[in-house]
């Protein structure tokens, strides 16, 4: 009950923020990116976290969604209709690559996804008649900042809601079984390939929709910016920093990622030495080595330590 109230208050806070502060364009822009990245990280997490299939090529789905929105909007579609279309296209693409790729396990799968991501970028780059090739596609005009903000908030909320629902569903337990022990999952009657493909399908759909928001915001999509390896890298970094496999971890990761990047870019000293790479690299190494559950895990530990100390104190009294 408390949780629902708390969640309601927060969502309400975000909902009325543009009304309370209509001129905070910069803050709205940053929040937009946080929500967008949150949705992207959550999408990745459905496959990478819940199912344990780490993908280094997820930019492919974001790019497909972004291109779908850009091209369909240019063809005269209303913007809102292009989002589900982009999601669907990305999801269909995932059906093309999922079943064969899932014959590979663990690290082999991860490596294959690097190849898939790069191949998708090269296809987008060379299929000029459809994508405009290296020149990319420019959208005509963006909706007002507040509209963008609500769209991104909506996508983020829907994505996180769906992820939370999946995690608690029977399907979610099946995915958890696939992650912890695929062989045992098979003997329990879970068809691991189908389960993984379903997870990828959902993940790709969500990313495709997020890609639509990306295109709406950036108004320009090109093979390197949307399909680039660096996009895939951020998709891996955010959930891991926040807490892989959790519901709010990717959101936390996205918030920190966005904030850190804003800070690092504006700080001349840090920017001069590209220290963002080190910051994210060290965070990644530290988390992998010491707290695989990410910052949320560290947070939990702190809380627990604090709680046990208060308990001890009260016992002493």
């Amino acid at each position, binding site marked *: 009950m408390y949780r629902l109230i708390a969640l309601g208050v927060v969502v309400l806070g975000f909902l009325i923020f543009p009304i309370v502060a209509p001129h905070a364009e910069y803050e709205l822009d940053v929040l937009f990116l946080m929500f967008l990245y949150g949705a992207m990280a959550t999408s990745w997490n459905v496959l990478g976290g819940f199912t*344990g299939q*780490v993908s280094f090529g997820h930019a492919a789905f974001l790019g497909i969604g972004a291109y779908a929105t850009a091209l369909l909007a240019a063809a005269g579609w209303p913007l809102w209709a292009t989002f589900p279309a982009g999601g669907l296209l990305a999801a269909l693409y995932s059906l093309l690559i999922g079943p*064969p*790729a899932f*014959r*590979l396990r*663990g*690290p*082999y799968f*991860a*490596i*294959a996804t*690097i*190849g*898939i991501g*790069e*191949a998708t970028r*090269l*296809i987008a*780059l*060379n299929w000029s008649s459809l994508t405009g090739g290296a020149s990319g596609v420019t959208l005509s005009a963006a909706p007002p900042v507040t509209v963008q903000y609500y769209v991104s908030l909506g996508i983020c909320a829907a994505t996180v809601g769906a992820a939370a629902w999946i995690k608690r569903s029977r399907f979610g337990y099946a995915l958890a079984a696939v992650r912890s022990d695929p062989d045992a999952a098979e003997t329990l009657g879970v068809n691991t390939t189908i389960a993984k493909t379903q997870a990828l399908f959902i993940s790709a759909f969500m990313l495709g929709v997020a890609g639509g928001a990306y295109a709406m915001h950036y108004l320009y999509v090109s093979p390197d910016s949307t399909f680039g*390896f660096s996009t895939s890298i951020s998709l*891996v970094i955010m959930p*891991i920093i926040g807490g892989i496999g959790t519901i709010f971890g990717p959101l936390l990761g996205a918030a920190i990622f966005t904030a850190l990047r804003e800070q690092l870019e504006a700080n001349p000293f840090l920017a001069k*030495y*590209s*220290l963002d*790479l*080190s910051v*994210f*690299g*060290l*965070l*990644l*190494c530290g988390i*992998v*080595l010491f707290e*695989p559950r990410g910052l949320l895990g560290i947070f939990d530990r702190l809380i627990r330590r604090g709680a046990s100390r208060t308990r001890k104190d009260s016992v002493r009294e």
Partner: protein
Amino acid sequence: MQDTLATLISALLAAGLYATMSYGLALIYGVLKVINLANAGVLMLGAYVTWWMWDAFHVDPLLAPIVVLPLFFLFGIVLERVAVRRVIEQEPIVSLLLLFGVWLILQNIAYAIWTGDTRSIETPFIESTFKLGGIQLAWPRVYVFVAGALTLAVLQLFLTKTQFGRAIRAVSQDREAARLAGIDVERIYAVAFGIGIALSAFAGSLLSLLFPFGPDFGQALQLKSFCIVVLGGLDSFVGVAFGAILLSLAEAFGLRYMAASLQNLISFVLLVVVLIAFPKGIAGIIRSLRRV
């Protein structure tokens, strides 16, 4: 005919290069069952150290491996002791992510020290060429090929003829059995990782003779390396050499019939197809053929 021959030779030379940059990856995977995602970073640093010695102290880049090999061997051992060791027993994806983080840090080190400028080595040797039956060849490319072939021979000798090499092989085949047989598996891990990193840095040093580079150097090559070791079955050096030849032939002859802008697609397609059709690589194919 002349044309085909020229393509063949240039493919073979490229194969030597591809193989050299993949040995380290294969050794580390073979022994530790860890995929070294930091390989590109090590290649890049090997190139930078070579360039830096040439640029600042006028050391001939051909002599650079004398410094690069021990330096990176030590670096590898330290990295294994400090970080990699803790994740070897965990799921493979954990070490992959760890080394991915290391790669980011290595890139940052290069940016911080040498900035993002494109660097390149220029010596008379690098410019020198010779003619062989009407086909002009470049000495540095031949040199890199020979170095790659020699590395393969030395590695094979080391692994089959020395006590330590046999211990490495024993660990890569069955670490528990090796432990029972009294082999200090932890030490083997550290040394093998050190050798693997040193080999990658050596490859980077060789690459600096052929290509200009920056901190992002190796990213495109990384995928080729993965393709090669997957083709070769991830843990056999001879397999790696074959994988390298296969890839370079596919690229050289493939490009005769398709646009050059699709060159990188060849390795990815090959990678994905082989991974999916033959998850055990060439070695696996040969093995399964034998079984039939």
